[in-house]
């Protein structure tokens, strides 16, 4: 699941906001930042971390527990 977004490194380019398949982010244009708003919807695909040009995002490998078949 997404862990941190480093506000010192973030430039508000909105790449993560745009590419996130699960709509986890919201832009904060006035502050030239992006904010993690819907953290629980992260699917741990690492797309934001991989594509962040500033290396501002860190995604952890463990996911939120989900309902199992048993």
């Amino acid at each position: 699941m997404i862990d941190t977004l480093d506000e010192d490194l973030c430039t508000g380019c909105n790449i993560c906001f745009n590419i996130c398949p699960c709509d986890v982010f919201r832009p904060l244009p006035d502050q030239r930042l992006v904010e993690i708003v819907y953290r629980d919807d992260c699917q741990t695909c690492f797309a934001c971390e991989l594509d962040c040009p500033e290396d501002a995002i860190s995604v952890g490998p463990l996911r939120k527990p989900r309902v199992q078949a048993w």
Partner: protein
Amino acid sequence: MSIPRIETDLLIVGTGFAGLWAAISAREAGVERVALVDKASIAMSSQSRLCAGATIYCLPEDDAEVWLRDIVEANGFLSRQPLVEEILKTSGARLRKLEEWGVRYPQSAEGGYLRIPSRGFRHAKMMVMPRYRDRVGGSAVADAVRRRAIRGGVSRHPRLLISDLLQRDGRVVGALALDRTTAEPRLFAARAVLLATADCSFRGNYVCTDGTTGDGFQLAYDQGVRLSNMEFLCTNTGSPHFGFEGTGVALKWGGRLLNAQHESFMENYHPDANAAEIHELVQAMAREVRAGKGPPFYVEMGESWKSRIGPALAGIGGFMPINLAKLEAEGIDLAKAQEWVPAVQTLRGGVRIGPEGQSDLPGLFAAGMTEALDPGLFNGWSTMRAMGSGERSGRGAAAYLRDAGPALPRDDEVAGLVHRATFALSRSGSTTLHTDEVIARMHRAIFRPEVSILKSTEGLKKALADIEDLRIAALPELVVEDAHALVKLHETHSMLLSAEMFLRASLARCESRGSHFRDEYPETNNDDWLSWVNLRRSSEGRMEVESEKIPLDDYPIQPIQPQSELQSKPRVDGAHR
């Protein structure tokens, strides 16, 4: 209320491989205005971009007939054979195009392409690790195809969820969209619509499939068109704690599934043991549960993790390389036994299509995983299917558009649909029920061994009652505080409908075939069930089920072996021997 309106000839919903290839071929076939719409970004958030990009290509030196038999047999003879054949035969040309656009596939040491067997097929081979610029995997191919589609001239509309299609005089004339940030409506007046929204994974335990929520299934169903193969839900396996793709490869290369007693058990169920097909693994796990030997289950990759499996998965592209690095940093050692569970991956049904990708409704087309082509899940085949079907359906839509009239959606209908699609936002509910809770209840209803693995009539009927209850009682009560939640509400609605289709189709098919296993009907019955199960919404709003005989006499490949040899089937008594 005035709704912003976008006029186009062809609206393509979804921008993975299928939607992008459809855009390219429609433009090449002369369609003037092509609009791409996606609930996330255009071509940057799709399953295609997240996958490893392994793709089957049938080259001139391959025997297409033999490959076709391979694929048709592996799909239990439910394939739409002429369409599969066309995708196979045109795949070499698509490969050449991709190479012209800059995609590179690895070459073997002996020269020629590096091609590897695909699990489930005897002959058809796939190519892996495509590269484009600095990317490797599905994102490499997706980026190249995206670039090409955009250069061909298309309008792009990201972050819009299509909530409804619009019909007039018996044909499709557009779609209503909701902005994912603001919930503002947008009207597409489109002379044709092509659905390429992937499949439905029910936001379950499989990795990186949360975006596939059956959106296209619902859009098509609401218009009364037929869908097929909805009984085929592929349940894969995975870790309950982290994402992992490639269990199939791992189990073929020395990994083992273990039961609660840490005993290897697959050899009791299938001659291929741990290398058996995905559905055989999951069915065997469910039988171990019945025998009291699980849960929990484990996967242990042992020595081959470091020597073979890990290095291979770290190089394939997609999300796995970074995922593996992070797991290692977290101290998770895949050589050792890790808890493993069934993970619902994909509902393999889709819109029943004709030879040009057309649905029952004039002007409505489908492609990729949104169309019903065949019910199996095989490495490299989904990718090839997506690209080939997109190319074909884009061309089909172009042919339709040559004679199609203008798109004139009725304003009164649009206003009504906008109200319905956004009503939940203005509702002041007395409950605090959120979509996540409804999704969890849906999971508890269908992610059960007797519902999605070893299906029993009783289990399916109980699940159907639970799902209907969620749709009728829970969905209208949901609290929706913003546009993000509104989109999730629509996705949940689509998933519940997909679940109902899965359950009704599963009840209808009274035999076992591929991933569809019915406890009361454990045998494959070719005398009665070389048929598709079709579903549609009746004019009274009921879900109608019909079976349609497959026109095998007109198809190139027929079942020639005795019925008992058609498929390698699990020994149903395995757990009790």
